[in-house]
Structures are given as C-alpha cells and as structure tokens.
C-alpha cells in the first residue's frame, strides 16, 4: 500500500495529517514518520529558503520502484508507505518531504523509513536551489542519478 505524490507549494501545503490519515487506515502497529525540513545554514551561508525542481512523473516512478525494492532488499512484505515531496519554494523550517512507514514491528518500520530516504536521495530526480540572506541563490551540487 503506497501513497506517492509531489506537492506543488504554489497550490497546496505539505501536511503530516495526510500521512497520519493514510497510515492509520493500514492497521499496522509500528509507524515511523521522517520529516525533512529546510535548515537555516548551509556551508556557512545563511539560508532563507529553497526552491525545489523535479521531473514529477519520474519522481513518482522512482517512489514506486523504491517501494517495490524494499520488498526484495529488506524482505518487508507487509507495509504501508506514504511519501510526499514538495516542488517550488519552501521557506526555512518548513517541510520538504514526509515519509511515513507503517509495519507490523518497529525494527521493520525504522529500517524501511531509513531505506526510503536514502534511496530517494540517489534515485529521485529532484533538485534544490538555495536562497541566501544576501539575496543570492545557488543550485546545489548533487549526485549522479542511480538506476
């Protein structure tokens, strides 16, 4: 059971209540939430916000693949996963990603949550442009996409 979505911040807000609603319907006992937020300092530069760019259809595809891979790599068959990532401008301290992982047992839920965020970093075509207090902005260096 997977929910995967890109949230365009110019149209709607990313909201953990949606994750809670989705995962509570799964009846699994162990639920882990990972929230990624925009931090105010990066490499000694004061950050005001980040603009996220994404290739939406490919990102959703990558979320689906990560979900499937968790079954073969982590051997977690029974699970519910909620993944939402923003696109557009996000101010400091606001959320950029919500990952919710629900499983039968806590070990599985912790492992699954960690697995998903690490794979998103390697496989989901998303880019960040950081904005600074001096009004400059800069695309952040990333890593080559992995298949």
């Amino acid at each position: 059971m997977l929910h995967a979505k890109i949230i365009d911040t110019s149209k709607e807000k990313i909201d953990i209540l949606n994750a809670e609603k989705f995962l509570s319907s799964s009846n699994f006992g162990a639920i882990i939430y990972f929230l990624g937020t925009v931090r105010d300092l990066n490499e000694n530069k004061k950050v005001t916000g980040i603009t996220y760019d994404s290739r939406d259809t490919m990102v959703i595809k990558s979320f689906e693949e990560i979900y499937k891979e968790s079954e073969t790599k982590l051997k977690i068959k029974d699970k519910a996963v909620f993944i939402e990532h923003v696109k557009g401008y996000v101010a400091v301290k606001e959320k950029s990603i919500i990952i919710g992982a629900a499983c039968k047992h806590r070990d599985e839920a912790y492992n699954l949550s960690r697995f998903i965020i690490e794979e998103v970093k390697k496989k989901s075509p998303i880019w960040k442009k950081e904005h600074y207090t001096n009004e400059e902005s800069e695309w952040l260096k990333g890593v080559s996409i992995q298949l």
Partner: protein
Amino acid sequence: MKVTVELHGATKDLSKNNFLEFEIKKNSSIRDIKIKILEFIEKNFQGNQNLRKLVQSSAFCSEEDEIISESYKINKNQVIGIIPPIGGG
C-alpha cells in the same frame, strides 16, 4: 530532424524557456546531443566551465522517463530530458 531537450535543476540556467532545441541528423546519439549542448554553452556562455561540467556529469531520459545511455539513437523528432546530478530530500 529536431530534438527538444527539457531542462531540469541547474541546467535551467541554460535557457529561460526551460528547454533547448537542436537540428540533428537521423540516428544521432545522446553523445552527439551532449556535444551540441557543449557547443551551445561555448557560443552563449563563453564556454563556462561549471556549465560544461554540469552537462558532462548529467544523465538523459526519454519521454517515457527511462534513463537512456549515451549510445541511444534518435531517429525521429523527439523530446528528451537532461538529468543533472540530483539532491532531493
């Protein structure tokens, strides 16, 4: 023949349109398209080294969102995407 390259991330600095278009010969490869983009950078950005490195380290994808290799051949008018190094989360 024409290929349209959809730009993402830092490669959006190459054009305000968020895409580049090139006239190409039939059966041109992704490697050939990369050369076209590097020539575009040479002409329009005085060979900016950061942009050159960015393109050289980028992958490409098809309209169907599959990553395509450098030897992938283009034999019709086609839209592809450039995928510079990623960093979500």
